[in-house]
């Protein structure tokens, strides 16, 4: 088993921990590959209902490991774009394509591709001391790993431009005001809070999460007419799930619904 990404199952929740604390969890080709494989495994596993992504030590993820990048330059490999296509893009896609909610438990600073990783998740819970940094400009690079996409959509054009062009950190407090962080909690409560949120979703109507994620993803590039039609299509599918039928029955019987009966029995 790998040690670059720790995996832990807690009931129906899969926690993935970037585990290079001495390098602030900087991403190298191996850790990117292992993280993607772990996410894809979680996406496939019917015993998993929700994923948490976090980092070991004091940082969430410092972005690309510049030492590894530099070593590749030394070896004559200067095609950073190819590295993105082959490694980073599939990792980001694996989060967005995962039909289960993915929570980023931001335990410390998220910079560069590390911030993009956090923004690619569906929900973010963070400690107050964490900083969000679009660090690329500081080393003469363009925001990558989905940063251009997520920054403009999460923060709007103006704030995205400010962050990308200055490289100045954004506080978690400001990010929360801008709607990017669901909850800010003390350090010792980060994982309990993330696990509780994950546990709730993992106990919910599993198929519907996938349909909602698909809809949200598509809605960003649709107009109102197309969105109305997509909703109609997705709702037809959602209404056919046993979980929806159970929820309607529970409503009529004035009791709490029990989702996932088909997976339990």
């Amino acid at each position, binding site marked *: 088993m790998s040690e670059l990404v720790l995996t832990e199952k807690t009931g129906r929740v899969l926690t993935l921990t970037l585990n290079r604390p001495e390098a602030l969890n900087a991403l190298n080709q191996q850790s990117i590959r292992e993280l993607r494989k772990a996410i894809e495994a979680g996406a496939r596993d019917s015993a998993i209902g929700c994923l948490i992504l976090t980092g070991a030590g004091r940082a969430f993820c410092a972005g690309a490991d510049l030492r590894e990048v530099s070593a590749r330059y030394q070896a004559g490999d200067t095609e950073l774009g190819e590295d993105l296509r082959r490694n980073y893009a599939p990792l980001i896609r694996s989060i967005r394509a995962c039909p289960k909610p993915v929570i980023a438990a931001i335990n410390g600073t998220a910079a560069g591709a590390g911030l993009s990783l956090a923004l690619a998740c569906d929900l973010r819970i963070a400690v107050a001391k964490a900083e969000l940094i679009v660090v690329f400009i500081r080393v003469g690079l363009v925001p990558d790993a989905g940063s251009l996409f997520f920054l403009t959509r999460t923060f709007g054009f103006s704030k995205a431009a400010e962050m990308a062009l200055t490289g100045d950190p954004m506080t978690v407090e400001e990010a929360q*005001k*801008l709607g990017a962080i669901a909850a800010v909690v003390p350090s010792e409560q980060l994982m309990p809070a993330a696990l509780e949120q994950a546990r709730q979703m993992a106990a919910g109507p599993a198929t519907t999460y996938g349909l909602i994620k698909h809809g949200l993803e598509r809605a960003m590039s649709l107009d109102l007419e197309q969105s109305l039609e997509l909703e109609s299509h997705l709702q037809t599918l959602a209404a056919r799930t046993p979980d929806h039928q159970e929820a309607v029955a529970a409503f009529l019987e004035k009791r709490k619904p029990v989702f996932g009966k088909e997976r339990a029995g």
Partner: protein
Amino acid sequence: MGLINRVVPDGAHLDEAKRMALQIAARPPLAVRLAKEAVNQAAEVGLTAGLELERKLFYLLFASEDKREGMKAFLEKRRPTFSGR
């Protein structure tokens, strides 16, 4: 984040809504209508189409009686009386 325009004490919501409605109702109706149309379109069209729409709606309103009344009232330092034409 702009999701809520006003937060008011319990029970004051209808009064505030009426106040806002009266404020908007006192504006030149044609301009209000076209502004709403433009805002609706803004979320769905690109920059070029958006600029084009702004230009067209601007010309349209520039030919209205309310535009003349609005500018006249401003110069005469009085409140305008809009006709919706």
